[in-house]
């Protein structure tokens, strides 16, 4: 067991336990906090995959903005400080069955794929990757179109969110 494998297992267990607590917690704010822990675990995975840039972007975008949005929305849409009562649907067993069935299906498909247990190839030229990503996002024959469309989408989402959630002027 190399140290990398030990770290992977610890972080995977923590993230999955946090994920299960997100979907089964009774208190909505506790769910948001477990979500923060799960997102942080995913950020550690990005570091393990040698994509450090994505780890930092994950913390900034998800934990620094989206999780705070969730906490604010939970606080603004509840009538009392404590939330009680069962948080799951009537047919929760059916949801669990579907999720488990999907897991089994995905695993079966993956096991029969020949590249399933490949090991990581050695990475070269570490310092150029960030500038390569930046160039790829703006060069005309690579990915400038999805990049620009994503920025238009963000502007539209911003205007839409302000309009939908804003106070209606009398």
């Amino acid at each position, binding site marked *: 067991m190399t140290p990398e494998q030990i770290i992977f297992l610890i972080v995977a267990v923590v993230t999955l336990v946090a994920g299960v607590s997100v979907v089964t917690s009774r208190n909505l704010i506790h769910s948001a906090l477990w979500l923060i822990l799960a997102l942080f675990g995913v950020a550690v995975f990005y570091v393990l995959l040698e994509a450090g840039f994505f780890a*930092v972007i994950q913390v*900034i975008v998800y934990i*620094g903005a989206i999780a705070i949005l969730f906490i604010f929305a939970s606080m603004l849409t509840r009538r009392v400080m404590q939330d009680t009562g069962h948080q799951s649907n009537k047919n929760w067993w059916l949801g669990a069955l579907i999720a488990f069935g999907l897991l089994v299906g995905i695993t079966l498909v993956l096991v029969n794929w020949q590249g399933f247990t490949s090991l990581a190839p050695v990475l070269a030229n570490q*310092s150029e990757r960030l500038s390569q990503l930046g160039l790829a996002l703006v060069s005309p024959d690579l990915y400038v179109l999805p990049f620009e469309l994503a920025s238009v989408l963000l502007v539209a989402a911003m205007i839409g969110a302000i309009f939908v959630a804003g106070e209606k002027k009398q």
Partner: protein
Amino acid sequence: MNFISDPITFIANWLGNLLLSWGLSQTFVTVILKFIGAGLVGTFGFALVIFTIWLERKLYGRIQDRLGPNRVGPWGIFQTFPDMIKIFTKEYITPVGADKVVYNLAPILSVSAVLLTWAVIPFAPTIVGTEVNVGVLYLVAVGAIGALGIILAGWSSNNKYSLLGAFRAVAQVVSYEVPMVLALLVPVLLGRSMGVNSLVNAQSVWFIVLSPIAALIFFTSSMAETGRAPFDLLEAESELVAGYQTEYSGLKFGMFYVGEFLHAFTISALTATIFFGGWRGPWTEQVPILGVAWFFIKTFIVYFVVVLIRISMPRLRIDQMLNFNWKFLTPLALVLLVLTAVLDKAFYLVLPSLNLLEAAIPWVRAGMHLLLNLFIVIITVQLLKSYKIKSVQVVAKPKPIAVAPEPPASVIS
């Protein structure tokens, strides 16, 4: 390598050999060394705070024409220790109905967000906690974690006013992250790298000469992030009792307090590193350890300016603060970023046809960027003049409040 040129590797190798000779495996030794390194970075942060609190209180007192602490030790330098003992021995009062886990977690998040920043600041060419090639983004990320601590503190206190204070505080912190990131992108653009040590290496001419507007925007929005005056609405001591920290007592409040002071010192260190050249100074190539001295001199000068601004300015209102951010700082930062990028690209396109000396190129580049910044400042001042209040609108004439009524005729005669 010897101790002078590369102290951290020297000590790490010596310690590693010592542990190996005791029979531990190599990976275990590596893990222990990394933990020791992380612990040292954290402890160093706290040790700095002990000195910083005394410095701030002494400066505060002197500028206000009083003595400041002067009883405990010469010039009161041990004043922080009695304060620490007082805070340690206070009782923890947890409010009824507070969420215990979140209530205890919030001060820890606040302080750790600040301590994590010290991992990427370079003290010398070879003394740096860890060399991440996305260091600047890492700084923004741990700032975002600080905002999380604030909202959790406000919510878990089970107190309406704490919650309101936390909402305002998070609005301020999250809003001021935007111009901070945009102003940080200007040195990244000029230094062609996101790693903090690489930025210091690229500063043959200090970035404050290249882009003073970016330095000012970064400095101002960092002060607003911390909650230092004039942006200290977060814990305005005369309103909202203590904002989101109202229900905290004892060491938990002490952690918020320590976190705030350390954050103020950290932003001085960051400004000194990114805009004033960090460890750069004379004789640093020959004696790399001298970089530590230069770094601390610059940091303390910037910290002196931070304390000066805190002492002398009144507090801003929340709507004034947010207006300032969204209507002034963010457009200015965006315009600055775009124009700096255009000028830098144009400069490097025109450069081969100018036949300059090899050593003069950074200075010519610095001069051109400085001219661009002056140009932007002039245009901004002209635009701001057109927003001046033209005249005071007269709403009503003052009415006399107390006028003696005319005595009735029958009383006089």
